[in-house]
């Protein structure tokens, strides 16, 4: 420690100091140290082309890590491969080596690379071009996306050895115009898909179908490319790859990359109101920890869960280190920044000029920003997989790194901080996709028919193809003649089909108090109850009233007010079971999985006086009803159980339980928390009993409820653990919900109900 500046000589020394600081350590629920790991390497494969070997040696790569070596050998052996390795383990060589090897031997060969975003694609091209230059070969690598100038497109189609693009472009521009890409499709040897874990849920289900179409076109041109994929650590990489690609896949996961010592610190902000279970804001605690790191001169990345939080933390941190560090040395990074600015920030991080960055999960993917020393997570990122990805941004091959996870008062965060063993011992989540979701599948059958007529005996996906084709022929989209189904419609189907889920469309909140500025955003499904007209919207403790909700344009206009009430909207949810697919009855509990329809409509809102909570008025909400047909899972308590409690007690118990379950459900699902919904009903129409329903927030379902049906027992056990270990007295936002919502006895009622449920298993 330099006693004049208070700056520690090394991160290790600073961490020792932190360990002696009770103010911090009292809030640390777990300090986990992952020991340093030495590199495990193999000699460059003897089969490696001499030019490629020389280029690697020229860049200081004299040996390969075991996973790179194994991936190379597996691809040479003809296998489809998915490589799973942590951040910064040199995974790009896993696919670049075999691809370059093949191109060096056969100049006519082609490869297609898919990345989920344009930025990643551009990074990749830069890296490939460097290698090509080092080898002194004329290797044409190009991105092909919306930004590609029309003048070079023809050249790329005919002469690009490696075409780097994204699934959306493949879907809407390349496949429907495959006759312009004959050279590529006739000669494609490899299809490389990086960030495989990003293709899950609705997006993944669409992409799986785009890949079915891609394989179909390749077959038409007589090629059968091998797939080489890379994925972050998930529970089921091989299964996920096989479902996404529809081919057998070899898993390569023997990571041989070295890593320095890594500290993982769980930090729970102090409780400021024990009765209400309110903790100090995670934003303020994040600011404190990140500020300390930055003042120590430690290059730090801060992850926040929303764009608004990114901006907030950025402002706080810039203020905090003002005078010590220039304002340009701490930057924000999120979707919505222009590509040029993003590139500048990435460069600054690599060179070390930028000392701190506050980001959304936009920096979670493999964009090259070099390796930082410290990472502060503002809130649990939502999945174990994301947490490791984000934390992996800090960690050098030598020397220590540290990650602080600052919990918010959200039940999931609280569960994780209080049960670190869950995080460290459990495999990360499973990536789920459901490519045979009927709506998704039929959309892609249309696109596929546009690309190439279907023939008798063809298959596409898991549903009987003939039925689908006949259906489309009846709809006058296809024409059946001479044993083939032809596209016979004027439209261009790919343009009406977006691969990305609708849940990503948010409502923007615009504050008109002085001029107009964007205050924040609200997801589409919460909008009817949170920002209906006349609603009081709270933002950082300030009250705003919604003056106008432009539903089609997804904008809410608000103005600052000072009133003594808040609003509470009533969402009438009607849920009908259409069909039961699976059913188990055990003692007092019946659980089922099947098809449901959900009708949701915001009906009225109440104005409730602050503190006294008396109802001082109400008004109607005029917004369209939403109807959804999807898959659901539900469990119902017996009539005997229902009889043991009064209706209102049962209501509070169910509501409390539902609140907990919906928050921990993402533990088992790799999904956006908004993709799965819960509805408790005291006397459900279908079961006539107290029932808790879960349903997928996407027409036709994407496999989430089905997974919950399978892990039902574990889900309930976790819920009980969480409620039991919560420090609040009788319910708080971190467990069953605030007492205003679940009543004074909500917590104990929920526990009783759970005990009954578990006893009956």
């Amino acid at each position, binding site marked *: 420690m330099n006693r004049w500046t208070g700056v520690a000589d090394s991160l290790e020394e600073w961490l020792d100091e932190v360990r002696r600081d009770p103010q911090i350590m009292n809030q640390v629920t777990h300090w986990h140290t992952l020991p340093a790991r030495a590199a495990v390497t193999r000699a460059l494969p003897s089969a490696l082309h001499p030019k490629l070997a020389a280029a690697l040696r020229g860049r200081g790569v004299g040996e390969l890590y075991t996973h790179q070596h194994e991936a190379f050998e597996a691809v040479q052996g003809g296998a489809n491969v998915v490589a799973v390795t942590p951040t910064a383990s040199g995974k790009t060589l896993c696919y670049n080596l075999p691809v370059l090897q093949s191109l060096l031997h056969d100049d006519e060969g082609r490869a297609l690379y898919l990345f989920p975003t344009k930025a990643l694609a551009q990074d990749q091209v830069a890296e490939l071009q460097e290698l090509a230059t080092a080898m002194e070969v004329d290797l044409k690598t190009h991105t092909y996306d919306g930004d590609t100038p*029309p003048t070079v*497109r023809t050249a790329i189609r005919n002469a690009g050895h490696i075409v780097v693009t994204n699934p959306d472009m493949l879907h809407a*521009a390349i496949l*429907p*115009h*495959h*006759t*312009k890409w*004959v050279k590529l499709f006739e000669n494609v040897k490899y299809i490389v898909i990086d960030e495989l874990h990003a293709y899950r849920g609705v997006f993944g289900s669409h992409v799986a179908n785009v890949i079915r179409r891609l394989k179909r076109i390749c077959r038409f041109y007589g090629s059968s490319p091998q797939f080489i994929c890379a994925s972050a650590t998930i529970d089921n990489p091989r299964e996920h790859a096989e479902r996404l690609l529809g081919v057998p896949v070899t898993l390569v996961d023997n990571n041989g990359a070295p890593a320095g010592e890594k500290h993982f610190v769980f930090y729970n902000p102090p409780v400021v109101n024990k009765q209400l279970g309110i903790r100090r804001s995670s934003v303020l605690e994040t600011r404190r920890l990140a500020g300390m790191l930055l003042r120590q001169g430690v290059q730090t990345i801060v992850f926040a869960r929303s764009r608004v939080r990114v901006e907030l933390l950025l402002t706080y941190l810039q203020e905090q280190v003002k005078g010590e560090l220039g304002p340009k040395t701490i930057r924000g990074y999120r979707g919505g920044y222009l590509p040029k600015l993003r590139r500048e920030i990435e460069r600054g991080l690599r060179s070390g000029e930028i000392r701190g960055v506050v980001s959304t999960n936009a920096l979670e993917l493999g964009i090259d920003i070099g390796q930082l020393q410290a990472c502060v997570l503002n809130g649990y990122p939502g999945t174990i997989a994301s947490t490791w990805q984000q934390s992996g941004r800090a960690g050098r091959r030598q020397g220590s790194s540290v990650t602080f996870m600052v919990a918010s008062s959200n039940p999931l965060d609280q569960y994780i901080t209080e049960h670190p063993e869950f995080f460290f011992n459990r495999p990360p989540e499973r990536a789920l996709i459901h490519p045979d979701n*009927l*709506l998704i599948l*039929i959309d892609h059958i249309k696109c596929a*028919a*546009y*690309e*190439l*007529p279907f023939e008798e005996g063809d298959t596409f996906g898991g*549903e*009987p193809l003939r*039925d*689908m084709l*006949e*259906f489309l022929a*009846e709809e*006058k989209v296809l*024409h059946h*003649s*001479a044993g*083939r189904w*032809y*596209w*016979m*419609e*004027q*439209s*261009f*189907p*790919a*343009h*009406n*089909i977006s691969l990305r889920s609708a849940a990503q469309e948010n409502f923007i909140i615009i504050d008109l108090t002085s001029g107009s500025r964007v205050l924040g955003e609200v997801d589409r499904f919460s909008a009817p109850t949170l920002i209906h007209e006349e609603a009081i919207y709270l933002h950082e403790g300030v009250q705003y009233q919604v003056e106008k909700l432009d539903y089609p344009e997804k904008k809410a206009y608000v103005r600052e007010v000072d009133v003594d009430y808040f609003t509470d909207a009533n969402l009438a949810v009607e849920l009908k079971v*259409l069909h039961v697919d699976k059913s188990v009855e055990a003692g007092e509990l019946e659980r089922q999985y099947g098809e449901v*329809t959900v009708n949701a409509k915001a009906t009225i809102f109440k104005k409730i006086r602050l503190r006294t909570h008396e109802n001082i008025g109400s008004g109607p909400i005029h917004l369209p009803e939403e*109807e*959804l*047909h*999807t898959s659901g899972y539900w469990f119902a308590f017996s009539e005997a159980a229902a009889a043991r409690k009064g209706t209102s007690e049962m209501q509070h118990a169910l509501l409390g339980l539902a609140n907990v379950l919906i928050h921990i459900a993402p533990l088992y699902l790799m999904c956006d928390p908004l993709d799965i919904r819960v509805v408790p009903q005291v006397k459900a129409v279908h079961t006539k009993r107290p029932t808790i329903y879960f349903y997928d927030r996407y*027409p*036709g379902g994407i496999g989430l409820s089905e997974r919950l049906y399978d892990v039902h027992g574990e889900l309930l056990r976790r819920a009980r653990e969480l409620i039991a270990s919560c420090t609040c007295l009788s319910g708080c936002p971190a467990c069953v919900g605030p007492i205003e919502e679940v009543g004074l006895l909500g917590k104990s009622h929920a526990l009783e109900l759970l005990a009954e449920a578990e006893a009956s298993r």
Partner: protein
Amino acid sequence: MSGLRERMLRLRGGTPAPEQDPRPQTEPDVDERKTAEDGPGSSARETAAAAASMAAFDSTDHSEAAAWARLQVDEHVGEQGSFLLRRVEHALDARHGLHVLGELAPAAGALAAFHRADPEAPLPSADNLLFLDLETTGLGVGTGNVPFMVGIAYAAGERFVVEQLFIRHPAEERAMLAYLEQRMQGRSYLVTYNGKTFDWPVLAGRYIMNGFGRRREALRHLDFLHPSRSIWRNTLTSCRLSHVEEERLGIRREHDVPGSEAPAIYFRYLADGDPAPLAGVFRHNELDMLSLAALAIRFGRLLGGELQLPEPEHGEERMRTALWLEKMGASDEAERRYERLTAEMSGAGPWALPLAARDKKVGNWRRAVVLWQKIALQAEEAAAPCLDAHIELAMYYEHRVRDLKAAIRYAEAAERLALRRAGLERAGGSARAHLTAIRSRLERLQRKTNKGNGSYGGQAHRRSARAVDRP
């Protein structure tokens, strides 16, 4: 099946199926939409050439065979299978609007100007042109857009032959493409309207889809959309073929079925097998072929410098025509037309400024200055005057003649006009921006005058002053 249908309808109940967007959907870089050039037509007097072949269409027997017979359509059976073929011959003295088909042979040679940069391009003649026009099931050049009718036309001895290849269902496409391939043999040029970006790319894709492999572009293009746009972009409200032919080729179509309606008519035929409604599509396509021939005659004769038609009244169109001729290498003919235009037009219309710009570029200062002065004179009297000529003149006197006094005179006049104009405009209009530029020009001119180095200014100084004028 019924189970699937039920499930589909149930699921769609939740999310209304995305509206089928009827607007053209295309890959952004390449697609010139066919139908954009091919919208609603007009009605009136039918042309003589077409009338003969179309007369048979209006009878009323209802059997399918009879219906095809009435359309003069026969089955063609080849090695690759069968499809339908309608063949119509026109005599060379048949008139189509202002032109007679027999004019094609003498006019064709001058079309060589389209490929003058290509030393291997053969001389176009009536015998090596193949006129081509597709009717397709959709828009764009995506792989799901099927040409259900391929119209071709060519000269054969004393006849002008139109052949229309038609598929009764998509499985006949292969046979149709094989036939088209035969017809292309021995021809050197495809004559189309937007065929470079639409008809040919569609066909190239269809050859690949049907297992013919990649077709090299064996034939060169004579795509008449481009010259039509060059000449008529400001004088016609649209450069659709049907509009151009009506306005400039003297052709009137009666009861025309617009190309945009053709897909729906074809889908109906696929569903009910009744050929009768297709009559309109055959007729439309045949007229397109004849109009292409008329355009070939028009452009050939223009390029040959021997068009006898009266010059159009629009100075604009005359100027665009001459500019196009110049671009196509017919400089002498272009120059004759520029001269006639400036001599015959009394004032200076909107055509004058682009012509002056052309003259400035090639260094023909004499005529440029005359034109600018004419325009400037008119501007002095206009309520919302155009400033460009004054500024051009100010630049001319400053840099070329080095007559600072004259330059200042024009700049001051420009300032006056800009003020007049600004008075008519809302805040933020372009006149105010001009005003600022004019004032800094005036300041610079005054500075030069005061330094007295205006007429003796050094090379470096002059260059920097010019840089201001040509940012």
